[in-house]
């Protein structure tokens, strides 16, 4: 397990990007996933290790990354959570007066 992810919290954005990519592609190898998410390969591997420990993904015998039901649920919960919080924001109609 990577020390960067272990010591600090994983970047939600990176996790969301990986899950979104997996949602679109189902099974995918790590190199293709690194390209589609725009992540450096070693960084992706560290995140995949962390996500596998959390049961968000599984890596099959062929080395293909597969999104689990838990991973999908976490992503949907994250979207709902953000919507709940951002949805509460009320933006004033601003227009600076000169």
């Amino acid at each position, binding site marked *: 397990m990577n020390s960067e992810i272990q010591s600090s919290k994983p970047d939600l954005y990176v996790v969301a990007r990986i899950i979104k990519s997996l949602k679109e592609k189902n099974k995918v190898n790590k190199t293709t996933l690194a390209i589609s998410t725009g992540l450096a390969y070693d960084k992706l591997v560290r995140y995949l290790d962390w996500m596998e420990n959390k049961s*968000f993904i599984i890596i099959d015998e062929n080395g293909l990354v597969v999104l689990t039901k838990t991973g999908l649920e976490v992503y949907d919960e994250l979207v709902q959570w*953000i919507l709940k*919080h951002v949805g*509460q*924001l009320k*933006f004033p109609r601003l227009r*600076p*007066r000169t």
Partner: protein
Amino acid sequence: MCLPEGEFILYPRQGQNLFNVTLKVQLNCWDIMLEKSENSITEEKVIAKVRELMETLDEVKKYEVLANHFNKFALIITSSIVVVILTSTLLPYTGLLAPFEPAHRFFLTFLLVLIPIVGVVIGVVFVKKQINSVKTGEWKYELSRGFPSALKMLSEMNFESYFNTISAGGLNYVMYGLVKGVAYWIITYFVAGLMFNLTTYMILHQTQILGGASMWTALLITFGYLKKELSKRFNEIRAIEKLQCELRRLSHELRNTEL
């Protein structure tokens, strides 16, 4: 395909109708498609809300520019006011208007109103130019990449830096209206003077018989204007501060979220 291969056999069992089996498969597909579209609608909602937030923050940037350039604006307006006061005070001593009749002298003096008008125009154009130079919408490309990018923008946003200047410069924004109000008072004073004197000249063939009426009228009009203007400006600043509190809370929650 909506469902994994080989999971459904489309041959009818004994006593079963092929149409029913096909329909069942079709309904299962629809369920999955509906679920997927619900999720994407939720993601779209988040993106729409973040877009709204970013547009609001773009406007906040303009307030920041306004607050930062208040000093220059105030200098332009104040200079024009000082110039008009000095000119109108010193003009009788120069003797330039001596050859004219008192009535004509008054109407020529009225042209001095152009000085504060030009001052206000220059000041407003200067500030508008500064506002127009604010870069907006730089986030549009990033946001077009979907929910993860919206999440990235939210989590990486430094709300404090956006609002610190506004909190500090809120007073400048209100003062901006006040300085403009003083210039408007001078202009209204000249215009009201012209109107009153035109009226008395036409009726009584005399000017400058109403004393300080034009000054008080101008003061009354300006007071009415300022009351409306300043309360609007205060409300805007209050709305920005309220938004700042909400965003600070959101930022705090985002940073403390764990999967």
